[in-house]
């Protein structure tokens, strides 16, 4: 039953591609960054979907020094994808911050944040 068991991946992929498309097709630099954000967030969902266990629960143990007998019957979701994605989210925001700082500087020096206008200005400068 590929269709049913994978539909959520496909939704995620669709969202991912919306972000990716925005990123590479739009000339507006802000839109590119938004696209990057959407793209990355969707990748996070892909990871988290992988970690999900049906009927599982958040990987926070019921008892601090939980006995194994107690943890055995509770089904926890896989914590590793969560950890990876926490890192990835932070990396994502870091990239966004740098990208936006660049956009601000580009606006200040070129007076535009449209890629084709910038290209035109650069071509004139080179000529």
């Amino acid at each position, binding site marked *: *039953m590929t269709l049913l*068991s*994978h539909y*959520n*991946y496909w939704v995620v*992929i*669709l969202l*991912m*591609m*919306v972000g990716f498309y*925005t990123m590479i*097709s*739009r000339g507006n630099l*802000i*839109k590119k*960054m*938004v696209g990057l954000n*959407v793209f990355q*967030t969707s990748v*996070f*969902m892909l990871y988290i*979907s*992988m*970690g*999900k*266990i*049906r009927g*599982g629960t*958040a*990987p*926070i*143990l*019921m008892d*601090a*020094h939980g006995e194994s007998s107690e*943890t055995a019957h509770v089904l*926890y*979701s*896989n*914590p*590793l994808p*969560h*950890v990876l994605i*926490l*890192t990835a*989210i*932070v990396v994502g925001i*870091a990239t966004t*911050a*740098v990208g*936006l*700082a660049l*956009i*601000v500087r580009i606006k*200040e020096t070129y007076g*535009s*944040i*449209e890629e*084709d*206008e910038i290209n035109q200005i650069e071509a004139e400068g080179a000529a």
Partner: protein
Amino acid sequence: MRIRNLFAVVMMAGIYSLLSAGLFTIMDAVDVAFTEAAVGAGISTVLFLGALALVGHHERKPGHTPLLPLIVVLVTGGALVYGTMDMPPYGDPGNPVHHHVADHYLEESPHEIGIPNIVTAVLASYRGYDTMGETTVVFTAAVAVMLLLARRPRRPEEEEDEA
């Protein structure tokens, strides 16, 4: 993203983030959801709004639709869908991803580390080095943004603006 008001675009992206945070909660990733809400919907929206305040709210031209990106995206998406065909079914506890190291974290961390939030245990100890890398990335971002936006003498910049 055909909306030309960038403000709306940014807000939509923020809402998307918030929704994905909700999805993360549904998928038991509460830590991730918390972070995504704080970062995706919070910090990143604030950053975008801050940037918009500096660069203006409107996209100047209607976006054109070049063919090449569409093809690239279709190929990429197609490849990914193709790839999911052989992926283990969603949520099946028997998937390889849930065993191997994941088992170790779930079963051993109570003895080895002894804190209930296994995500924190993995984050700070088993994969603490990744977290140090993550902290470094954040620090790097700060350095890069400082390099770009730190105060400069006023005069040369005004000359540049006029040029």
